[in-house]
C-alpha cells in the first residue's frame, strides 16, 4: 500500500497541538516554569481553550480527558481533578464557539478569563475538599492572571501555525 506522504505530513502537522499538550502534561511543565514565587501559567488551559474554540477536530475531548488524567498522575493529584478542570475549560470554549458567530482575538481573550477562572476554581475546590493538600489561593490567582496575560501571545502563535498548515477555521 503506497504511503501518501502529503496525507501523513498533514496528519502529523495537525497532531502537533495534541502532542504538545501530552508532552506538557508528562514533563511537569507546570512545576518547571515557576519563578519569583508568583510566576506560573497554565499552558494546558491555553492550548485546550484555543483549539477547542478554533478547531475542535484537532483536539478531541477524549484526549483532553486523557491529558488530565496523565497530569494528575504526574503531579500526584487525586485522579480526575485535572481532567475535570480541563473538560470545563473545553466546555466554556465549546459554549463560546456555539454562541458566537464571528470571534476575534479580543472576544477569545476575554471569554478565556471565564474558562481559566472556572478551571482553576475547580482544581482549587477539588484539592481543598478531596485531597490532603495545602493549596494557596494566591498562587492559583496569580496562575490565572499570568495565564490570562499570556493568552494573546499563544493566540498569535497558534494563528500563525494554523495558517502555516493551511487549516480552515471551524465554522
Amino acid at each position, binding site marked *: 500500500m503506497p504511503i501518501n506522504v502529503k496525507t501523513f505530513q498533514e496528519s502529523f502537522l495537525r497532531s502537533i497541538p495534541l502532542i504538545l499538550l501530552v508532552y506538557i502534561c508528562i514533563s*511537569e511543565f507546570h512545576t518547571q516554569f515557576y519563578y519569583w514565587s508568583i510566576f506560573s501559567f497554565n499552558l494546558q488551559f491555553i492550548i485546550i481553550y484555543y483549539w477547542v474554540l478554533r478547531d475542535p477536530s484537532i483536539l478531541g475531548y477524549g484526549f483532553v480527558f486523557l491529558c488530565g488524567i496523565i497530569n494528575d498522575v504526574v503531579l500526584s493529584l487525586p485522579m480526575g481533578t485535572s481532567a475535570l478542570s480541563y473538560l470545563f475549560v473545553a466546555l466554556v470554549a465549546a459554549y463560546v464557539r456555539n454562541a458566537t458567530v464571528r470571534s476575534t482575538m479580543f472576544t477569545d481573550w476575554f471569554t478565556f478569563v471565564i474558562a481559566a477562572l472556572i478551571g482553576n476554581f475547580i482544581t482549587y475546590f477539588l484539592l481543598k475538599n478531596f485531597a490532603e493538600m495545602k493549596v494557596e489561593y494566591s498562587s492559583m490567582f496569580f496562575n490565572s492572571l499570568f495565564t490570562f496575560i499570556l493568552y494573546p501571545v499563544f493566540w498569535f502563535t497558534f494563528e500563525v501555525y494554523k495558517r502555516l498548515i493551511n487549516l480552515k477555521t471551524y465554522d
Partner: protein
Amino acid sequence: MPTSRDDFGIAIRSALLQRGAKQKFSLFVLIIVSVAILSLDNINLKPIKILRSVINDGIYRISAISSSPIKFSSATKDFFVNHIFLYKENKQLKLELQELKKEKLNTSYLQAENKKLQEIVQLDKESAFITVGAKIMLDKNSPYLNSAIINKGSNSSIKLGMPVLSKGHLIGRIVEVNFLSSRILLLNDLNSRIPVVLSPNGEQAILTGAGRKRPVLEYLPENFEFEGKGIAYTSGKDGVLFSGISIGEVIEDQIEKRIEVKLFSDPDQIFLVNVVLEKSTDLEAM
C-alpha cells in the same frame, strides 16, 4: 428575557452533548467519567490503588525521559549564565588570591622572624653572656670574602673584636664598627684566625678560615690523633674572645688529609645574631 435564556440553554446543551464530526465522546460523558474516577480514587478502593500504581510506574518513567529536555535547557541556561559571569569572577578571585598570597608570605616571614627572635630572647635568658640581638642587613659570601653587616653598631655598645653568636654558637667576630651598623668577619673567611680548644682532650689550635664552608684547624699538637669525634670551643687565649663558646664539630677531611670544623651555625643561613658584650655575672645562667 426568555429568548436569551433559551439561547444559553441551547448553547450549553450543544456544548455538552454535541460530539461533532471527529469527536468520539461528548463532554457530558467525559465529565461524568471524571467525577466517577475522582470518587473512586477518593474512596481508596484496592483495585483503584493498584491501577493507579501501575499508571504511576509507567508515566513516571515517561515523564522522567520527556522532562529531560526542559531540565537540560534549564541546566544549559545556568551553564551559560555562569560562564558569562566567570570572567568577572575569575578576575576577582585572582585579586583575592594575590592578596592571600601576600598575606601568607607576610605571615610566613613574621613567623620565621618571630621564631628567630624567640630563640634570641631565649638565648639572652640562658646564655652565660650578655648579648645584644642584631639582624643581618647584608651578607657577602664569596670564596674570598665572607662577612656580614648587622644593623647594630656603637649605639648598642658594640666594640671591635666582640664575638658574634648564632643560636648560641660562634660564627665570627666584629671587625668594623659604625654608629648604626657593624661588620662581622665570619669564621670561614680567609682572614679569620681564632684560638680554640678541642674537647674531650683539650688540645689547643688555631681555627683558620679557608674561604670554604668549613674552617681548618692549624697548629695542632705534633702527636695529635683524631679520635673520630670532638668539639671545638673558643679558648680565650687571645684575650679578646671569651672562652667556652661552642664553634663546631671536629671532622677529618680524608681527601686533603686535614682536620676541619663543621660549624654548628651555617654561615650561609644566618639571619639574626647575638653580639656578646660581656660575660654574665648571673651564676644561674652560667
